[in-house]
């Protein structure tokens, strides 16, 4: 009799354990697998935003992480070719491109702009301290395999064409793909 009771209790314990394992497995299946990856949404085109954006993206890639930057709104102007002056097909888009001269070289400071004196001083300091400029960091980023991705919708809105933007970028994507990029990234930032 004693052995039957022991068997019964062991069986119950086993059933309980199996149930727990199943519950854990179900929970685990719903968990999102995060990659060793950094994704930045580059919204700001100001010098003091595009600079940290490019520093972090290149550093992540240099540390062996996957790294991608999604350029949207003002961030897009930082990846316009430096020789492209006026973009867009209507007066509003054209005005926007005049107000936001393309390329990271021409990025303005969000404060202390002083009609261009601010960025000039910043770059002088950066030169003295051998800090790479954003336009150089964009180049480095490409070399290190950082995926630079323009936002299709804002390109259309601002009248920016693929040929207005730097070479070596990924194909433009939409918000859902941007969210997919962020979803599996261990680190995602909005700058």
């Amino acid at each position, binding site marked *: 009799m004693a052995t039957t009771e022991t068997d019964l209790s062991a069986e119950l314990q086993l059933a309980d354990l199996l149930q727990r394992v199943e519950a854990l497995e179900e929970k685990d299946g719903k968990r999102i697998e995060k990659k*060793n990856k950094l994704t930045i949404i580059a919204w700001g085109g100001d010098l003091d935003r595009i600079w940290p954006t490019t*520093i972090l993206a*290149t*550093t*992540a*890639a*240099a*540390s*062996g*992480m996957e790294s991608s930057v999604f350029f949207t709104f003002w961030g897009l102007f930082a990846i316009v070719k430096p020789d492209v002056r006026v973009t867009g097909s209507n007066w509003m888009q054209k005005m926007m491109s005049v107000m936001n001269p393309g390329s990271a070289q021409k990025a303005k400071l969000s404060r202390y702009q002083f009609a261009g004196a601010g960025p000039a001083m910043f770059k002088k300091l950066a030169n003295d*301290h*051998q*800090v*790479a400029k954003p336009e150089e960091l964009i180049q*480095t980023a490409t*070399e*290190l395999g950082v995926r630079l991705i323009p936002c299709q919708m804002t390109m259309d809105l601002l009248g920016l064409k693929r040929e207005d933007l730097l070479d070596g970028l990924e194909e433009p994507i939409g918000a859902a793909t941007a969210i997919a990029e962020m979803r599996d990234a261990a680190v995602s930032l909005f700058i």
Partner: protein
Amino acid sequence: MDTTIITATVDAKGQSCPGPLVSLAKALKDARSGDRFELLATDPGSKSDVPSWAELSGNQLLESSEADGVYRYLVRKS
């Protein structure tokens, strides 16, 4: 194994963040596993950045020292 063999020296003296790490990563890109690199930097930020980089990238930081304002790191590619 002889621990004194260094594949190459990456001279990042004078460079600021993220210069030394970018230079190091570029040097390591085409290196073989086990290759040793010496990184020289003057950026004080490298004191915390190089160990962080090693942890993130999975490469080994074998030695770090400082002399006359120059930081020296010995890194092994894993």
